[in-house]
């Protein structure tokens, strides 16, 4: 018996992972879901999310979320850090592609009627994920602290703030004061790198578990 077999045996006798894997590996996917490229859109969004997590961790290692340092640190990433410009640009494009993929995925589900019984709740989780994805975009927009970032956020929080009744609380929660500044920045950073990724990961597990339990909706 080779060393690899020994390791395999050691793990298998403790965790029985092989049995779990077989059910995943052999699980049938409907042929129309394999051949029709429209069924790739959800997977594309998920891949973009994974790429965003990877590149995002890289960016978070160099980024400094204060009004004085933020712009300089992004400039540093773009000009000095090896591959920094490429990684930030991939983060930028993956974010846009993720939102496009989520929207197209939703359109496919809508026009194919795949949200119908028993998949109603998965649609609700999906719309929540769309909302979270756009919030990701909104919170990430401020972080470079350039002119576009500052003024787009000012308008965005202004619009959110004029929603009746809850608007002023949403605005206070986001801005953390009367005007956009250091408080806003740390809030947006915390939301962008902690709150939203965690929520997305949890909802994705739910989303995929429901697909697995209920199967993929039938063909048109």
């Amino acid at each position: 018996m080779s060393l690899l077999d020994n390791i395999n045996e050691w793990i298998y006798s403790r965790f029985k992972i092989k049995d779990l894997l077989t059910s995943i590996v052999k699980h049938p996917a409907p042929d129309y879901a394999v051949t029709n490229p429209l069924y790739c859109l959800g997977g594309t969004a998920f891949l973009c999310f994974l790429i965003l997590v990877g590149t995002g961790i890289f960016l978070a290692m160099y980024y400094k979320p204060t009004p004085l340092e933020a712009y300089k640190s992004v400039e540093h990433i773009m000009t000095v850090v090896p591959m920094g410009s490429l990684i930030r640009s991939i983060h930028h494009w993956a974010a846009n592609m993720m939102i496009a993929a989520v929207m197209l995925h939703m359109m496919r589900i809508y026009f194919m009627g795949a949200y119908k019984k028993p998949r109603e709740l998965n649609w609700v989780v999906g719309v929540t994920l769309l909302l979270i994805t756009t919030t990701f975009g909104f919170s990430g927009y401020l972080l470079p602290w350039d002119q576009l970032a500052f003024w787009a956020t000012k308008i965005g929080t202004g619009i959110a703030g004029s929603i009746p009744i809850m608007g002023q609380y949403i605005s206070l929660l986001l801005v953390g004061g009367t005007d956009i500044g250091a408080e806003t920045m740390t809030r947006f950073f915390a939301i962008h790198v902690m709150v939203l990724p965690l929520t997305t990961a949890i909802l994705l597990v739910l989303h995929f578990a429901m697909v697995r339990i209920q199967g993929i909706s039938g063909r048109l």
Partner: protein
Amino acid sequence: MSLTETEKKKGEKKDREPVRITGLPFFPHFLLREVVVMCFIAGSLILMASIYPAGLLKPADPFDTPTPIYPEWYFLYVFGFLKFWTWDIGPIDAKMIGVTLPMVLWYGLLFMVPFIDRNPSIDIRKRKVAVALGVIALLGILYFTYFSIVHH
């Protein structure tokens, strides 16, 4: 349990949609296609990132408002609707409606789609109303996106 109840249960089970559909196994068929798509996506991302790098404008200046300011493309329709709606309804301010309608009503409707559309058919020919409403919603979003760019 009475006989009728048991029969009822059996009937319910029959009505239920079959959960497992026979098809191609996840590995290697489904995964292979996924890997091909992943390579394509990763490749196009690297290509786009190399040709059009992410921008960085001048540092933020709270005392200098630049023109024009565009939000991200996926918020343009919200912005466009806000510009489009200029009519007060009774005591409610036009701006209030312009903000609330797309953000609260539109997303509310989106969440409720499976509970509003009770038609069980997934055949597109038997879902004319739902498809028509979907197309109208899409055209609306495209129109307001266009509106926000033109009327800046």
